[in-house]
């Protein structure tokens, strides 16, 4: 700060921080007050704060991980925050997606996020991209940001984000969660391994439940999302030691962090010296997720039709949810075989019988059906809308969750 007594006679030139004459963005008195606790950190200081203002981060996904990330990055003063998401806010989001409240229900997440973040910090710019990240738009979108944060909830988008970051030479602050477990790292192929060096391929579809199916502790994405947040600020400020080359594992039940070292895979298909992937590919196909089979509908059975078939004793009903979901609500007479146990339970099923599969809303059971079909079963049906539809259309005594 200028010393007043020495400069009181001749009007001093305003300092560079107020004008931006040195190339970094100018900050206002209001911002000085707001970021005071950063300014007195020698590692950040006024220059660091102005660097944050000059920087940009793209959040892919504004869900469990993206919510705390967006809030803290905006509060910290990251100048331009892009958010890509296409979902609407649902009740079941509010247990962990702290960016939203009761007043956001039914609104586009992007829109609700903009309102909340503008209130939190009017000095940062929020760029809302209401879209699904695809191979067609990813490079153009990611190109415009310094750092990308992977907070999506599916494998195809995770591989897409990785590949686009490798092709563009951007760091990817990575986090993923399931139940009580989290993983975090920074993938930057210029300086270390990429996501494909760690996991060359995703698990086969269907046999690993997502958070929507397997559940997640509400606070967990807060812990992992903010580890991503810390790493992003360090990357932008060039501070400390980042998670490049390390994977941090978090077990909330044991309350233990573990760490493993990651090396670059010399045979990595995208970041090695002889890459076989040179442009973005079809990630749904790569992850084995062919869009719902064209004939998916022909395998469906409606709740009322199922009730009639059960009454005639013509069908075996299999519930592929988890035991604790079964405890909350179940259809009388259904046999419980959780999806993950299906492969080892094949021998107990009779392929000559008519089998109807059901889950909570119909997705997991469709995957179970696909698995059984590939295993040679033919007389298969999937309960459309799952036990949720059963409760709405056949038996309201069955609780919805």
């Amino acid at each position, binding site marked *: 700060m200028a010393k007043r007594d020495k400069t009181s006679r001749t009007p001093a030139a305003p300092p560079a921080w107020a004008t931006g004459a040195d190339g970094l963005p100018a900050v206002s008195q209001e911002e000085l007050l707001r970021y005071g606790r950063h300014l007195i950190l020698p590692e950040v200081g006024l220059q660091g704060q102005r660097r944050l203002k000059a920087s940009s981060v793209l959040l892919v996904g504004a869900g469990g991980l993206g919510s705390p990330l967006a809030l803290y990055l905006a509060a910290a003063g990251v100048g331009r925050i892009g958010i890509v998401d296409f979902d609407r806010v649902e009740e079941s989001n509010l247990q962990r997606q702290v960016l939203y409240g009761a007043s956001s229900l039914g609104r586009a997440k992007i829109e609700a996020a903009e309102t909340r973040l503008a209130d939190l910090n009017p000095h940062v710019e929020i760029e809302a991209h209401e879209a699904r990240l695809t191979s067609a738009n990813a490079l153009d979108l990611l190109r415009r940001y310094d750092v990308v944060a992977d*907070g999506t909830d599916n494998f195809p988008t995770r591989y897409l984000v990785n590949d686009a970051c490798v092709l563009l030479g951007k760091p990817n602050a990575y986090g993923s969660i*399931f139940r009580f477990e989290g993983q975090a790292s920074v993938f930057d192929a210029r300086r270390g391994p990429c996501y494909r060096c760690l996991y060359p391929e995703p698990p086969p579809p269907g046999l690993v439940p997502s958070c929507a199916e397997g559940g997640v502790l509400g606070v967990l994405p807060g812990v992992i999302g903010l580890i991503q947040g810390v790493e992003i600020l360090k990357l932008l400020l060039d501070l400390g030691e980042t998670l490049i080359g390390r994977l941090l594992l978090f077990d909330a039940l044991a309350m233990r962090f573990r760490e*493993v*070292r990651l090396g670059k895979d010399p045979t990595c298909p995208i970041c090695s010296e002889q890459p076989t992937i040179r442009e973005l590919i079809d990630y749904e196909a790569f992850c084995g997720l062919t869009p719902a089979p064209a004939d998916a509908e022909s395998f469906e059975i409606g709740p009322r039709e199922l009730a009639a078939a059960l009454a005639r004793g013509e069908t075996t009903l299999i519930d592929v949810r988890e035991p604790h979901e079964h405890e909350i609500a179940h259809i009388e007479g259904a046999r419980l075989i959780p999806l993950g146990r299906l492969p080892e339970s094949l021998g107990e099923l009779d392929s000559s019988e008519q089998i109807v599969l059901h889950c909570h809303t119909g997705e997991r059971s469709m995957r179970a059906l696909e698995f059984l079909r590939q295993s040679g079963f033919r007389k298969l049906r999937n309960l459309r809308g799952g036990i949720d539809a059963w409760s709405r259309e056949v038996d309201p005594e069955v609780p919805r969750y």
Partner: protein
Amino acid sequence: MKVFVPTPLRSYTGQLACVEAQGATVGELLADLDRRYPGIRFRMIDEQDAIRPHIRFFVNAEQVRDLGAALRPADEVQILQALSGG
């Protein structure tokens, strides 16, 4: 030795995150795990005895890519599985 099991495979270990198993190599360790928790090996190793590409093994925090890698009783083995949730 101590083996840390990822969440998606804990349905085999009675939800235990950390279990005991023995073996002079990673391959032997997995065979022992399968005796204790039937079915768990097949979720990590395919029909051709290759490590599934979404499963990774780390011994004392260093990745091993070979089932023949030697183990000592004091080693800690971490099994990793890719998670998609966010």
